């Protein structure tokens, strides 16, 4: 049976299971639980041009079947990544993908340029859910122009595969997906977290320091599956699905809705070994249903 999937020219994964940015550190954090070489890929924490401290604590609130986070892109910056982290993770035997963020298209361009020379980085995933400082803080990913602008900035400065990660906080995700595809994205991943909020009623205060934050976990899954289904039907490039995947069944839901690969995020917090278990469960499903290649069931809905 063949679990290999092709995401872009020069980017073939040994299986469709990738760990999601911000939920798996840089990989070594999970090495006691997971044989990292059994993963399709690892997407590391969002990296920005300058180091960032992120938002004040509290940054997390649990919600029904999920959680809100307001980590806010805490990371040591692209130079620390290139000079330190990269040396530690370059020999991990899987596709290591760097997730990048910025406040302007120039930021994205510069981060991409600095990552260009790293031969063991398999691809860049562009987080377009970040506020665009020049347009009053509205996220790039909420307009077709913003999405296209950032995609182009990365495309022009990076030779490897470019995956654009879409924000779900939009009225028409298909138009944004097409804009990113037209601007040169090799693949699309969706979804990022949903904007949410929770209140500590006894204290009459928000549970997060930033009031609002990103919702993730199984509570978002049906919406994410729907979005993947809509986008996969509308674009030519491969789609990577994520949002609340907890097991192999959930992963297959996205694949049947049209995803070529999937990402596992919040589930890593519940079971640190869940990612490899999902690989096993997908294989077991394929065995049971006589599926020889995932393309037989991809987008079957």
């Amino acid at each position: 049976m063949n679990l290999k999937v092709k995401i872009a020219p020069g980017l073939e994964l040994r299986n469709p299971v990738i760990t999601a940015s911000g939920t798996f550190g840089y990989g070594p954090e999970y090495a006691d639980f997971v044989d990292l070489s059994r993963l399709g890929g690892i997407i590391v924490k969002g990296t920005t041009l300058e180091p960032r401290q992120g938002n004040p604590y509290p940054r997390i609130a649990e919600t029904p079947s999920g959680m809100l986070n307001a980590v806010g892109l805490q990371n040591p910056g692209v130079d620390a990544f290139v000079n330190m982290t990269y040396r530690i993770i370059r020999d991990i035997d899987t596709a290591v993908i760097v997730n990048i963020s910025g406040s302007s298209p120039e930021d994205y361009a510069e981060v991409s340029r600095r990552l260009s020379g790293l031969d063991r980085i398999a691809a860049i995933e562009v987080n377009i859910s970040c506020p665009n400082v020049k347009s009053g803080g509205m996220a790039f990913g909420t307009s077709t122009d913003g999405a296209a602008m950032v995609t182009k900035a990365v495309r022009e400065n990076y030779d490897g595969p470019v995956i654009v990660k879409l924000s779900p906080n939009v009225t028409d995700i298909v138009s944004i997906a097409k804009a990113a595809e037209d601007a040169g994205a090799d693949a699309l991943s969706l979804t990022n977290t949903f904007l949410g909020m929770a209140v500590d009623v006894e204290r009459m205060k928000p549970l997060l320091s930033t009031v609002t934050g990103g919702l993730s976990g199984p509570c978002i899954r049906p919406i994410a599956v729907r979005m993947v289904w809509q986008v996969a039907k509308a674009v030519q490039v491969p789609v990577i699905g994520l949002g609340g995947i907890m097991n192999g069944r959930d992963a297959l839901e996205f694949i049947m809705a049209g995803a070529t690969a999937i990402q596992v995020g919040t589930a890593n917090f519940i079971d640190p070994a869940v990612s490899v278990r999902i690989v096993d469960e997908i294989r077991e499903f394929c065995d049971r249903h006589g599926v020889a290649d995932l393309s037989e069931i991809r987008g079957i809905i």
Partner: protein
Amino acid sequence: MKEKSLFEIIDIESLPLGNALMKLRPCSGKMPDMEPGQFVNILVPDTPGAFLRRPISICNVCDGLLWLFIKAAGTGTRHLCSMKAGEKLDIVLPLGNGFTMPESKDARILLIGGGVGIAPLLYFGIRLREQGYNPRFLLGGATADSLQLLDEFKKAGEVYITTDDGSCGVRGTVLAHDIIRSQTDRFYCCGPTPMMKGVAALAREMNVDCEVSLENRMACGLGACLCCVEDTIEGHRCVCSWGPVFNTKELKWHES
């Protein structure tokens, strides 16, 4: 090395104020090595309102059993406290750093605990005693009822007590007890944040070294999600992987 393992509840004792002392045996038969101050992360079974794991300090490791001292503070811990012997728990452990051993066996050390914050101090006190140190404990509670596991603490060292209502020991908070102003080289403190901040401020004034164990809200427990950070002099640091034990010199508490 961290692991995710099944543990069986061998004994669970209900204590006043909804607390429970749980003793667990690893189903594999092999207890991992654990340092005092480290914690475990527990998946609460059959409780939809507890989606993420719940971090709980290692209270003791004794006769092949892991002790956890749990306060029923909400949905998840309430379920844990109501569990029965024979039931099993999925636990990720051991997590975080531990307390720093004192440099000298003659060091005068005071372990200061309040509420369920006493949990990690028991394991640490026992370890100190085993290694030839002379730990003293200062334990504070709201009422006599809230002072628990006292017999266990007494086996490891001298115990001093305060209660808010004076029903046991000195009336007031731990700061009201004379012992805290005696000649001391290091405080180790775990309890409610206002109490730890009070002890940290006194330590600063007395020029005593002070370690505290923080309980920030967590998700992964592995240093991967950056949800649990504390603001330190070196910037945001994860409590789950840099801590939960911090020297108060590293924290910015006195600035606020």
